[in-house]
């Protein structure tokens, strides 16, 4: 049973980590496409359409990878975590159902018109289709984050013989951590997509692309990131306070606090040791953790030793949190420097252009690290206080799970490689394409089949 638990967890972690890469881009990228399309509709300047066309290809590819890796998840609930559906299916089922009904069909159907229908429908219908796909992706995030937040901070239900029954749907959906997690995740997507857009545009400029479209995309993305990054710091802090109230053991692991203490320091770095239940090599800022979490230099933070057997493994949560915050700060710095320099001088100095390129996938790192903090931080529970992860696992033979796990890993590595390769390939192709002449009809470029 231990083998199948470990393998199922590894497989699920691999699947969900691979999956989140793509929605974390596509949710916000679609809103950016809406912005490009609406700017084109208003100004009729072809440069907005060119930016749209380049990024819609990347959106289509990203979306396809998100869809196929997402379908896998809906099967794994049943195959690998049957206990999950047996215990909390009355809540998880309808929330997932609403995601399919309100979001998946909407985005999948209008994606067809958005990608291939521009010559077949009036301009406003095409803009509307883009908008509906964006609404669909965000609705999808709404439902799945409602479910995830419910698993973190369950509310609005009663347990009868270990099975959860809903008493109040409003309380289930708008459970205590949902508003924070939803905002935090949408902002994360905004930052991930902005940095991808900025990074790939910088790559095009670096390769000698002198056209207007990549410079416009770079500016849009960097300015957006410069606005979203400080917002994210603020929302992240509020999310942390919410976690401190509802899941103190997770915060204790994030801060590396073993014994309940007043005036706890903020650890910039440390090596938590779960056997000795202490930290090594601490670099502390005195009282800072208490100030952040309780707004009082001598505020009390409950330590991990109050939750023995009930708290998560400390290292992944502790390090994950530092990676997320560290990368987030780098993003803030890059976005501000970049925006300032673009707005002042109209272009980036070479070193900053390279820095922006290096940060292309910084959003992925921060997003993954953040999700590890919150998901590992919920352990040993699958649903906080209701269902332990070990009690939800399947009875499938470990050999079968091992086989499928290895195949998934191979497939994902190949696909991720192909995806990254294709992003840069599309950027290089775009560098070579000649700029349209002014006054030329942007709809009649003979491009051949571009499915």
């Amino acid at each position, binding site marked *: 049973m231990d083998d199948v638990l470990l393998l199922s967890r590894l497989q699920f972690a691999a699947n969900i980590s691979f999956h989140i890469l793509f929605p974390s881009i596509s949710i916000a990228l679609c809103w950016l496409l809406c912005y490009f399309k609406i700017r084109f509709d208003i100004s009729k300047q072809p440069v907005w359409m060119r930016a749209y066309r380049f990024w819609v290809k990347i959106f289509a590819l990203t979306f396809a990878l998100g869809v196929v890796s997402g379908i896998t998840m809906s099967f794994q609930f049943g195959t690998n975590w049957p206990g999950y559906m047996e215990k909390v299916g*009355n809540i998880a089922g309808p929330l997932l159902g609403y995601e399919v009904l309100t979001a*998946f069909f909407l985005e999948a159907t209008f994606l*067809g018109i958005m990608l291939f229908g521009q010559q077949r429908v009036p301009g406003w219908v095409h803009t509307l289709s883009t908008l509906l796909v964006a609404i669909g992706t965000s609705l999808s995030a709404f439902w799945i984050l409602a479910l995830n937040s419910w698993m973190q901070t369950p509310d609005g239900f009663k347990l009868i013989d270990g099975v959860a*029954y809903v008493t109040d749907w409003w309380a289930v959906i708008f459970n205590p951590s949902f508003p924070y997690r939803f905002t935090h995740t949408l902002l994360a997507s905004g930052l991930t997509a902005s940095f991808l857009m900025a990074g790939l545009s910088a790559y095009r400029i670096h390769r000698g692309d002198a056209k207007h479209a990549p410079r416009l995309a770079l500016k849009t993305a960097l300015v957006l990131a410069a606005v979203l990054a400080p917002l994210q710091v603020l929302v992240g802090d509020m999310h942390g306070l919410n976690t401190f109230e509802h899941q103190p053991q997770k915060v204790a692991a994030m801060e590396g606090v073993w014994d309940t203490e007043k005036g706890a320091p903020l650890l910039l770095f440390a090596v938590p040791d779960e056997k000795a239940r202490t930290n090594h090599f601490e670099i502390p800022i005195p009282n800072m953790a208490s100030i952040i979490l309780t707004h009082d230099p001598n505020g009390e933070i409950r330590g991990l030793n109050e939750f023995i057997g009930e708290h998560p493994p400390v290292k992944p949560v502790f390090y994950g949190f530092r990676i997320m915050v560290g990368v987030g700060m780098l993003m803030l710095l890059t976005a501000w420097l970049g925006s300032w320099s673009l707005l002042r001088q109209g272009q980036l100095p070479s070193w900053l252009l390279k820095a922006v390129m290096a940060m292309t996938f910084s959003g992925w790192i921060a997003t993954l690290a953040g999700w590890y903090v919150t998901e590992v931080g919920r352990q040993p529970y699958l649903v906080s206080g209701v269902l332990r992860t070990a009690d939800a696992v399947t009875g499938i033979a470990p050999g079968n799970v091992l086989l*499928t796990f290895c195949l998934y890993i191979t497939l994902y590595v190949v696909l991720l490689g192909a995806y990254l390769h294709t992003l840069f390939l599309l950027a290089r192709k775009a560098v070579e394409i000649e700029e349209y002449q002014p006054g030329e009809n942007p709809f009649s470029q003979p491009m051949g089949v*571009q499915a």
Partner: protein
Amino acid sequence: MISDATLPIIFVGLMGLAVLLYAILDGYDLGVGILLPLGHESRKDQMIASIGPFWDANETWLVLAVGLLLIAFPSAHSLVLRELYLPATFMLFGLIMRGVAFDFRAKVAFTKKALWDKVFKFGSILTAFMQGVMLGSYIMGFEHSLAATLFSLLSGIGVTAAYAFIGACWLVMKTDGELQIKAVYWARKTSWMCFAGVLAVCLVNPLINPGVLDRWISLPFALFIWPIPFVCFCLFVLCHLVLKRLPLADDAGCWVPFMIALFIFLFCFQGLAVSFFPYIVPGQLDIWQAASAPESLRFILVGAIVVVPCILAYTAFSYRVFWGKVRDLRYY
């Protein structure tokens, strides 16, 4: 107010609708993938263009069907998917491969396009075959005997042929010229394989499942079942006769084979549904035993009543936008 006992019936109906729509819709686009000729560039592009705007939404019906199974009949969901763990996982690999190949093939360097086309074709075949294996295994009540395994493999071939058949009919409707003539040829070949598959299921299913045999010989169910093989046979013959004459001048009747294929799928589905109702896992679990809490079902039903008609409406809109013969598929 709908009674608690009626809710599972409504949900099994909704699930049936999702499965049927999935089999028809993703059936034709999987079929186009199965038929994809390797090494014939313009033909390949045209075939893929015919399914480009639709495949993603078509696949969503599978997510809805599995979702409804999960929502309404969670214990059946665990039981069925645990039994079908390996074929379901391989089907997912197939779906992943074809889904991404569709996008990659158009974006990578020309030299790599042929490779992604192979991935697309292989993924389509794998998906269809594994769905057939799952269907066969479900009909056999998840037995692990040699006969059951052979039947599952046979069912895998049958479903692959059925998808290829409806895919060919789709191409007859959506294309013209040389490709349409080729599609007519494919439709004729695959229709007989598909018919053999239908016949095999009709014969084996009642023979091995005593419960199903009961249905076949007891009124009123027999009235719904017995006509099915005969109607299907007549439809196949009709389809054959039509295909022999296609394509006609001014392309009259190019949509007829697809309509016939659609009705064949509908009748086969009806046959299976009548054979097994009210069991959700044949011989083990009926829909009332497997159903989740009524308050959860009501909560989702409200949404379904509002949303499903909208989905059908905008799906119809999308088919109208891309009505007629396929043109080059472009992003703009």
